[in-house]
């Protein structure tokens, strides 16, 4: 029995505190970090509680809240359980259970099941408001959502992201950042309108629907002054970088994404009804339902979303399906894209179904606008942007990767598309999401990726071939258990990577991606060829060199060191078009040349503009000299240094311990050997003793035998003696002569027993031996 259970234990894949499977090679490291996580969690629970208390008292957002908090401090977990179920059943938000009641000691998967179990119990529509203590954060964050929605109304298709918080608060901000973003929005909507579908305008409708003020409750917002909001925001930012407490995470994420502001009553339920009606009515691909193709894809992916996670049982999967179908209906320009299954799954583990829906809407529609659509434009643009940043930040590393033939997008693509889900350990994924959702854009995506390069670049430059480099990076990223180090490096190490900067780079690089796609859609028959050409163009574009040089190349004039690339490109063009008619080819060459020139021109001007803007930005930054910030940076840097020092110390200790351990082990081995030797000796001696005993016994036996014989011989001798003495008596005459012989006889007799014994013994021996 016992053995069986041990076997089961081994067979069952190990899971972390969140119920996610751990890779076997990581179980050990995970266990090492589990305690650190626990300590961090305790600390952040305390900090968050203080923060929320402070916010609650200073703004009196909800006067009841404090009392509740105090009561809750004394409450046991049973109470908590009850409160939770009450909350989930009534949707009532009056309980306000607080962070300090988080049960940090119990991180077993069963505990985490609480939410999913709630999900099971609920009927389809499941919505509950977040605790009132988070209202202030929600109000603060929703201001940017409102602003975004307003912007969307103006431009139909919005910019990529939520406006930065500062901007959202000064509602009519006229900072450079703002005008930059507006520009981005406009050009974004212009470029996208070429590929716009009816679907997208539908989405616009949805968004504008959601602005109707009657459905919102932003009344409290006016009570909160902007100054105070700003100081909070600073503090909040710090806290977010330190990570969210487990029990608050789901709700705080909703506050960050602005779920309450986004939510439209009954919208989710309507989508679900629409979907069920459609699939019941009609098997055909009628426009109002989710396309069959996407439905099939969703079905394929549901069982492959966190397989084996205890919470994703049948009910969990039903929730997941509803969520994905509803989103596909809500935003047909995205529909469903692989990766969203993981996001939806993750959100469902942290919050009720409808809340998860609105959070997903926020993430995909705003944060990752244009990422998961059919063309995946923004995703491709971001890859180019990231590569550019890499070249700027880690020129040596990129050079090495170039040398190995590794393209940055090979690994950054999967990182960005999955928002690091399945790429980093869970604790790190969640910490990155904390910051990303707080910031309202994709800056954290870049910063995290850059931090990973900073952490693992030194190891990467030692690799000898492409395969080894990728394998190493994958495994290093997968074992980034030190999530605090990762987030800190990301947030403090790459301060120049800002949304403004990213918007600029995107603007600069987007045309090359769009050109490929435009080509694909424009020339139906030829698109595949042009795609090939475009991909060559892509690698051409990536050829390092100044714009001027490239221009020369484009003109095809100089046979400089870079021209082979162009030759390749042209010969590739010829090769590719073998099957096509000749005029087509010429057309293409001309078109491509023109396009190339245009692109290069664009690039050059973009570079110039970027430089201008950068200097402007630098000026702004210096003017805007926020001593607070730099002080904090300093402080954090000191902290980092300290952490590093302690880490080094720890490592030293570890090494010392290891050496000690090794020595002890060696000693142990020596003693063990000695023990074994001694044992062998003992055994040998025992054996010898045994042998001796045997011999002794045998000897004793033969002694006894001999004694018996002696006795016999003696009795025989006696008999003989008696006989002889009889004879002597009979022949006693002449007495004088026999006097001497009698004496002689006497002597004979005394010798006899010995002689007899000796003879007997010899005789006995010779008779016994053969019989043995």
């Amino acid at each position, binding site marked *: 029995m016992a053995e069986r259970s041990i076997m089961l234990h081994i067979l069952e894949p190990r899971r972390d505190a969140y119920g996610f499977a751990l890779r076997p090679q990581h179980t050990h490291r995970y266990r090492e970090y589990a305690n650190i996580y626990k300590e961090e969690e305790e600390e952040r629970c305390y900090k968050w509680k203080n923060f929320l208390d402070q916010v609650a008292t200073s703004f009196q957002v909800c006067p009841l809240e404090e009392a509740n908090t105090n009561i809750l401090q004394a409450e046991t977990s049973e109470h908590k359980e009850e409160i939770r179920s009450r909350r989930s059943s009534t949707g009532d938000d009056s309980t306000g259970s607080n962070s300090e009641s988080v049960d940090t000691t119990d991180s077993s998967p069963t505990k985490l099941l609480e939410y999913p179990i709630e999900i099971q119990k609920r009927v389809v529509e499941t919505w509950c408001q977040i605790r009132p203590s988070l209202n202030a954060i929600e109000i603060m964050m929703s201001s940017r959502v409102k602003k975004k929605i307003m912007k969307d109304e103006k431009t139909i298709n919005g910019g990529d992201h939520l406006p930065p918080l500062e901007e959202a608060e000064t509602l009519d901000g006229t900072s450079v950042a703002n005008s930059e973003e507006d520009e981005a929005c406009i050009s974004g909507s212009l470029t996208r309108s070429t590929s716009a579908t009816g679907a997208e305008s539908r989405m616009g409708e949805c968004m504008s629907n959601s602005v109707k003020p009657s459905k919102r409750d932003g009344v409290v917002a006016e009570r909160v002054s902007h100054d105070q909001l700003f100081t909070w925001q600073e503090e909040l930012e710090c806290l977010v970088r330190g990570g969210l407490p487990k029990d608050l995470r789901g709700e705080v994420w909703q506050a960050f994404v602005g779920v309450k502001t986004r939510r439209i009553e009954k919208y989710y339920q309507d989508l679900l009804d629409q979907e069920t009606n459609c699939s019941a009515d009609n098997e055909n691909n009628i426009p109002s339902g989710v396309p069959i*193709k996407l439905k099939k*894809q969703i079905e*394929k*992916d549901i*069982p*492959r*979303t966190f*397989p*084996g996670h205890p919470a994703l049982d049948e009910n969990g999967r039903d929730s997941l399906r509803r969520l994905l179908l509803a989103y596909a209906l809500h935003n047909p320009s995205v529909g469903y*894209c*692989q*990766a969203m*299954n*993981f996001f939806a799954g993750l959100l469902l583990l942290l919050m009720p179904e409808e809340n998860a829906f609105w959070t997903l809407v926020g993430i995909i529609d705003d944060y990752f606008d244009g990422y*998961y*659509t*059919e*063309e*995946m434009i923004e*995703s*491709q643009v971001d890859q180019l942007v990231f590569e550019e940043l890499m070249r700027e930040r880690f020129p040596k590393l990129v050079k090495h990767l170039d040398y190995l*033939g590794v*393209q940055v*997008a*090979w*690994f950054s*693509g*999967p*990182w960005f*598309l*999955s928002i690091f*889900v*399945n790429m980093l350990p869970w604790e790190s994924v969640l910490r990155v999401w904390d910051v990303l959702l707080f910031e309202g854009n994709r800056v954290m995506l870049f910063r995290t990726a850059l931090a990973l390069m900073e952490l693992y670049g030194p190891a990467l430059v030692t690799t000898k*071939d*492409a*395969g080894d480099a*990728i*394998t190493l990076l*994958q495994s290093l990223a997968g074992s980034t258990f030190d999530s605090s180090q990762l987030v800190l490096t990301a947030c403090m190490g790459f301060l120049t990577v800002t949304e403004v900067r990213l918007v600029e780079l995107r603007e600069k690089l987007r045309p090359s991606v769009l050109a490929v*796609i435009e080509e694909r859609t424009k020339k139906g028959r030829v698109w*595949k*060829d042009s*795609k*090939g050409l475009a*991909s060559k163009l892509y*690698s051409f574009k990536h050829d390092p060199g100044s714009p001027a040089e490239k221009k020369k190349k484009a003109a095809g004039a100089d046979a400089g060191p870079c021209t082979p690339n162009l030759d390749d490109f042209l010969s590739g063009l010829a*090769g*590719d078009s073998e099957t096509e008619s000749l005029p087509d080819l010429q057309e293409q060459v001309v078109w491509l040349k023109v396009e190339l020139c245009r692109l290069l021109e664009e690039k050059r001007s973009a570079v110039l503009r970027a430089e201008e803007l950068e200097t402007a930005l630098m000026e702004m930054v210096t003017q805007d000299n926020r001593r607070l910030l730099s002080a904090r940076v300093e402080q954090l840097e000191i902290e980092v240094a300290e952490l590093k020092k302690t880490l080094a110390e720890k490592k030293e200790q570890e090494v010392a311990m290891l050496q000690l351990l090794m020595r002890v082990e060696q000693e142990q081995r020596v003693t063990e050997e000695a023990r074994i030797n001694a044992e062998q000796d003992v055994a040998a001696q025992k054996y010898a003793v045994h042998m001796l005993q045997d011999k002794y016994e045998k000897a004793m036996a033969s002694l006894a035998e001999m004694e018996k014989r002696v006795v016999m011989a003696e009795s025989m001798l006696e008999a003989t003696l008696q006989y002889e003495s009889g004879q002597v008596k009979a022949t006693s005459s002449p007495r004088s002569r026999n006097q001497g012989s009698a004496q002689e006889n006497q002597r004979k007799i005394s010798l006899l027993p010995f002689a007899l014994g000796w003879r007997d013994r010899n005789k006995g021996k010779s008779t016994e031996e053969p019989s043995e």
Partner: protein
Amino acid sequence: MGCSSSVPDRASGRSGGLNPENSAADSKNLRVKLVLLGDSGVGKSCIVLRFVRGQFDPTSKVTVGASFLSQTIALQDSTTVKFEIWDTAGQERYAALAPLYYRGAAVAVIVYDITSSDSFAKAQYWVKELQKHGSPDIILALVGNKADLQEKRKVTVQDGTEYAEKNGMFFIETSAKTADNINELFEEIAKRLPRPTSS
């Protein structure tokens, strides 16, 4: 279980020899970039995991973007081949990213599911795409996976064989579940690799 190869010496038709960046090293130790393409859910990830780790997990994870694994095998002639395998995402829209991974690959393994005609059609799309945009001397392999599901078969062995023959591809039916023909697939590919003409 169909296992047929067609056009025995493909390399003779085209210029042999590999691109230095695709595969390298000396004549005894080859290094090959291989890419797996095909519809979602046909079992690409399962095939790789079976080949590299010797495991089959019926609840594999959806591949987002692409994932990388490598595995070295030894051949009878005492050469070793290190496969650098890119397993790509199957959903149609991810095809936009595929060139990133198949560009410069020496081998493309195109997988379909024998229980799905759609996936066979998708495989044909990939064959065309690679014939146009892959490396000119790329080795193409057509793989019909899930061969253990005979009773649900929709694509016959003959369909696969004929299509492969027409396009000068190597064809094999595999099962990641039972491990049938998985090693054979990669060994067969290894044998077809043009050897660097040693000096």
